């Protein structure tokens, strides 16, 4: 019983993480996130690679929809009316082209970045300036308090 519960907890944690990902890319300007990471000391090549990847998530979703539509056009309706095990076997047909498409796309984006001298200089200029404002300090304080309270309950109650 305890094992089952533990498993469920882990599942929910992962689910929360996955569900919150789009929220990040929806609320935070990707470019600003990159600059933020650089300010915190991350090398800019890594910061930009990571945030550009994040930028690609919406287009991946679109791609999945395109593939599903293409399947529907060929009278493939497992995702609508199939049984669970049929759906399970249908996923690879969806995931494989998506992964290949994503790899191709990231290579092309890489070429586009190379063409504009990305990574050629040790330091680059940022035209966007981000500053830590009162709002940021306030939300930081709020978050730290929240984490503190939750940890307290977790440990002592």
């Amino acid at each position, binding site marked *: 019983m305890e094992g089952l519960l533990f498993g469920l907890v882990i599942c929910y944690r992962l689910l929360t993480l996955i569900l919150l990902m789009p929220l990040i890319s929806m609320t935070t300007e990707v470019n600003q996130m990159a600059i933020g990471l650089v300010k915190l000391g991350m090398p800019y090549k890594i910061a930009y690679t990571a945030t550009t990847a994040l*930028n690609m998530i919406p287009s991946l979703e679109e791609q999945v929809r395109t593939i599903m539509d293409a399947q529907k056009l060929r009278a493939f309706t497992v995702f609508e009316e199939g049984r669970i095990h049929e759906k399970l076997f249908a996923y690879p047909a969806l995931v494989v082209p998506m992964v290949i498409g994503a790899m191709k796309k990231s290579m092309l984006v890489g070429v586009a970045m190379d*063409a504009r001298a990305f990574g050629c200089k040790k330091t680059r200029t940022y035209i966007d300036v981000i500053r830590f404002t009162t709002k940021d300090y306030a939300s930081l304080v709020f978050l730290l308090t929240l984490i503190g309270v939750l940890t307290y309950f977790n440990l002592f109650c």
Partner: protein
Amino acid sequence: MSKPVIEVNNLYYRYPRSNDYVLKDINFSVEKGQFLAITGENGAGKTTLSLILSGIIPQAKGGKMHGNVIVCGLDTQKEDLAVLSQKIGIVLEDPETQLFTTKVFNEVAFGAENLGLPREEIIKRAKWALKVVRLEGYEERHPTMLSGGQKQRVAIASALTMRPDIMVLDEPTSQLDPIGTIEVFEVVKELKQKYGMTIIMVTHKSEEIAAFADNVLVINQGELLTFGTPKEVFSNKEVIKKAWITIPQVSSLYLDLLDKGLQLEEFPILPEEGVRLVKQKIS
């Protein structure tokens, strides 16, 4: 005649993990301020050649390259990409993957930021580039929220902020409607005429080659089939057949008339020419 800005000598190239040379024994040169069109069937090697001219191949993508490519006196295999990108800019085939930031202004500034230029200089350049491509007022737009023609113009502006002397455009209008195509061509024409830039454009559209190009380079299965003026190339039956080139409508009209026994004075490639020649014939 001035010294060429691009010299390609005995160029051979094969991609990494591949045994076939996709470009074989390519030789040509381009003079400053010229408009060179590159054409040829799918898979002929046009995109590969464009990337070689800008140094991305082999510097970023590897593979095996023989011969040499000299751009503005610089060896594209050895010169730093940061230096090369300020001599030769490139607009890639796919408008979707070459725009990867979240704002048009950031997209256009990206290259200059990478060069580490002062912030004011970058902003000045980006504003200028957006003006050249006629996209002032779109600074804050998300690049995906643009029409195909606008996307390609953003891509042109993004290369322009590096202030290159040469602009390579790989099929910039292949996915565009007629209006988008005209928008892009207007901009390219201005780059050549007003700013004296050298233009290399991969394209299949023979009407546009006829109207804008000084020279045409035809690639066939990785080999240079011919290099000449649009008139020389379009009137060369063998080349047309071998490389599956569609000739301008007015040129096919000439051939149809010839079939029917009516020979015009010259081989026309532009509509105006055709009109003049027909008028001449019937008067």
